[in-house]
């Protein structure tokens, strides 16, 4: 993590560190996502998910989207995963894991997933083959993001706020005992 922050501060040669960082994090993320959807223990799945989410935040830092990275940590890791853990514990998940967490017939899902990876991979390589990210990305400041949100994207912002209110009310109504 410190290395990443140093990178974000511009203290280290950018490209090598970035590529190494990307590779390591990406590997962690893929493993985490893989374990998240295959492990037989749902609490473990949630923790693998944390790994993926934190990795995503790190990737955002690599792409100079610092504010989004911090939001990702605050909302996903701090709130959503905790909600998941809450949900898991309130629905009495056993400690040893649950052999029936996944359905027996995984073939169709695997085929779908593989087909999707193959298709997306082919298309992406075909389309964006050698495109490079700009090397001189300056970290996005919070003020830039807020200026964008409150001017150009104000209407979507309002829509999201209404959606959040609706979701809040809806969640309370559904979860409430009659």
């Amino acid at each position, binding site marked *: 993590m410190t290395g990443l922050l140093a990178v974000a501060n511009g203290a280290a040669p950018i490209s090598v560190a970035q590529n190494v960082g990307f590779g390591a994090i990406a590997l962690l993320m893929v493993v985490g996502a893989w374990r998240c959807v295959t492990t037989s223990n749902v609490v473990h799945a949630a923790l693998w998910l944390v790994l993926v989410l934190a990795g995503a935040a790190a990737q955002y830092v690599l792409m100079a989207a610092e504010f989004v990275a911090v939001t990702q940590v605050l909302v996903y890791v701090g709130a959503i995963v905790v909600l998941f853990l809450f949900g898991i514990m309130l629905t009495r998940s056993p400690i040893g894991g649950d052999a029936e967490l996944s359905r027996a017939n995984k073939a169709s899902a695997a085929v779908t997933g593989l087909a999707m990876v193959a298709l997306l991979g082919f298309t992406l390589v075909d389309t964006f083959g050698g495109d490079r990210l700009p090397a001189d990305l300056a970290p996005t400041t919070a003020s830039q993001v807020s200026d964008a949100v409150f001017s150009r994207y*104000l*209407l979507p912002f309002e829509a999201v706020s209404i959606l959040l209110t609706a979701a809040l009310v809806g969640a309370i109504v559904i979860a409430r005992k009659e």
Partner: protein
Amino acid sequence: MLTYAWIIPALPALSFVLILAVGKRLPKGGSEIGLATLAVCFVLAVGVGVGWVQRVNSPPKVDEAALTARSLAGQETTPSGERRVAPAGEAGAGALPGGARTGEGAAPGGEGSPAGAGAGEGGAGQGEAGTAEAAPVPAVVRTVTWFQSGGVRFTAGTMVDGLSAMMLVLVSLISLLVHVYSTDYVAGDRRYTHYFAFLSLFTASMLMFVLTQSTLQLIVGWELVGLCSFALIGHWWEEKPNSNAALKAFITNRVGDIGLIVGMIVLYFAAGRSFDIIRINSMANAGQIRHLLLLVASVSLIAAVMSKSGQFILHTWLPDAMAGPTPVSALIHAATMVVAGIYMVARLYPVFFRGLSIGTANINLLAVVGAVTLVFGALLAFVQSDIKKVLAYSTVSQLGYMVMALGVGGWTAALFHLVTHAFFKACLFLGAGSMSHACHHSFDMKKDYGGLRRRMPITFWTFMIGTGALVAIPPLSGFWSKDEILASANGLGGPGGYKIMLVMGIIGAFCTAGYMTRAVWYCFFGEPRGAAAEHPPRENGPRITVPLMVLAGITLVIGFVNVPTNGWFSWVPDGWALRFENYVQPRAAYFVSGGGFRQPVFTPWIAVVSTGAGLLGVLLAYLWFWRGLGPHGITARNRVARAGYRVLESRYGLDVLYTDWIVGSIKGPIARAAYWVNQKVLDGVVNGAGREAVKAGHFVYDRIDQGVVDTIVNGSGATAEGSGQILRKQQTGRVQTYGAYLFAGATVLAAIFVILAAN
């Protein structure tokens, strides 16, 4: 003062918050905050009114060079290029965004139009009715940028001209009186504080609505008013009918709101992406917007007027809205909120005037809607036994008059009637409330009233004054305004005039007189019945009677603000005549000028005929009720009469149409039809495919030689059944399975597209 008009709506809004926050802890439950605020509001509103009068008397010199320079600095270029319109809100848009700005905008008199600025001789006394064109008096506009999104600047602000100043005074005065009245009327109520909070919010939204400078803010005010109306109608929501009535009002208004929003969006684009009312009006007036767009916009907006101002077929919520406390009925459903529709038409009058070709065509939607409403509403008032419902239908009918007046081009007449009606109808409603307050909270005048004349003299006399004004007996206020409406129907609108509307108006006057006399009979004359007989009612305290007397007093004199000048009135000095028209009607490019727009002219024979019709109505009702003459009991004997009575009693069956036919048809047959389709068609395809094929197989098996085609037949039948079974199994009911199909299908489709694109 005029630039600080925003304080007037801001105060009650603040009072709403304050009452909600601390009202319950105060000794008077928050009503003192509301009262004090409204008193201040009223004083400020009068200040605005006086300020406006001064402005009209000595119009500010419009520095045309400066105006032009300012509009050049802005991004404005008018499409036609021939004539520059410099609407106040847009002028100098290059100024600091977010900063408050005061503009003395409004285009100068309109160089191109026949009634140019040159016609004005300055000064106040514009004597000649029908040709009142004076020096332009621009509205005082103040805008701030509300927010900005995607390059569109949404402004909020105030626009003070004669119309809004008049409405400010009207709303704040009636609201003040209603506040005073309510402290007694709803004393001891469970939600006393809540009630006053919403009265404040209602007043705030109405004041904001009338001060609006942009159509966006107008929509906001409109909806806020509707919301408060919903809350106040359902004030006693514990009883089912009340909450139903509130819902009905809200939902009926939603129907019209669609029209409002559609209309405003059309206008927004028609005026070159602007919410600015002055800009929209100026462009409409100058003919810079295509007629078709104006027609679409005005027809859509008429839907909104129909719902908000209770026009025929969407009026059904208004009588039901009487479920709220009576002061609310007086404030909202007689004096202020229901006139929102009228106000909106008046504010955007050039749009309607040009869009509906008022003044050149002999008939238009607005006039028809108004005329139909005024007659049908009046007829309905005959069969009500609930005094408030009589008044409610009377309101519907009078609103019909106003809409009709606007439809025939009588802008001043409509607004004048709005003012007089607000006062006398508020007086009548509060009088009805006073009676009910004394008679065990009953509103059934047939069952529980009677003989109240001696028991409640103040209520009686104020009610009589209100009735007189409503019946349009000279010289009470209703006479002047109703007569002006009829004169407009006669004189305006091209060669033929609106003769049908004139006839309808006179019929309406006759009916009005009839049902009001009937109501007066049931309330004040005859023997006490029901509650009035059991507990002899007594006159209410001063907090109820004083507002009544104030309103009655105003009703007596308010008619004289627009005394005509011609005919019998030529002796009236110029400084006294047509004050209303002089001060209220905007005189700037954002109001209609030319194109057939004229002022109504006092016509003696119409005054005589309409008054005669009214008196005839009074006389007939008098003979019927007091003298017992006429075919009493005809509804029991005559089938035609009974059928007519039934139709009226069921309110033309509109409620039945709405609840049973429209809702019922959706609930019943359509749902059933959908179910049938689901059962027979969809399931049939899946299951039936197999089953029918099996049947076919059996058919063939039985009739045709088994030995030869046996295997083929059986095979095909089994295949069909099998495929049916397979299809059936696909419908597992598990969302994930569907998700799997979705993703797999999407992948396959995407793959196909990729392959196609690659080739």
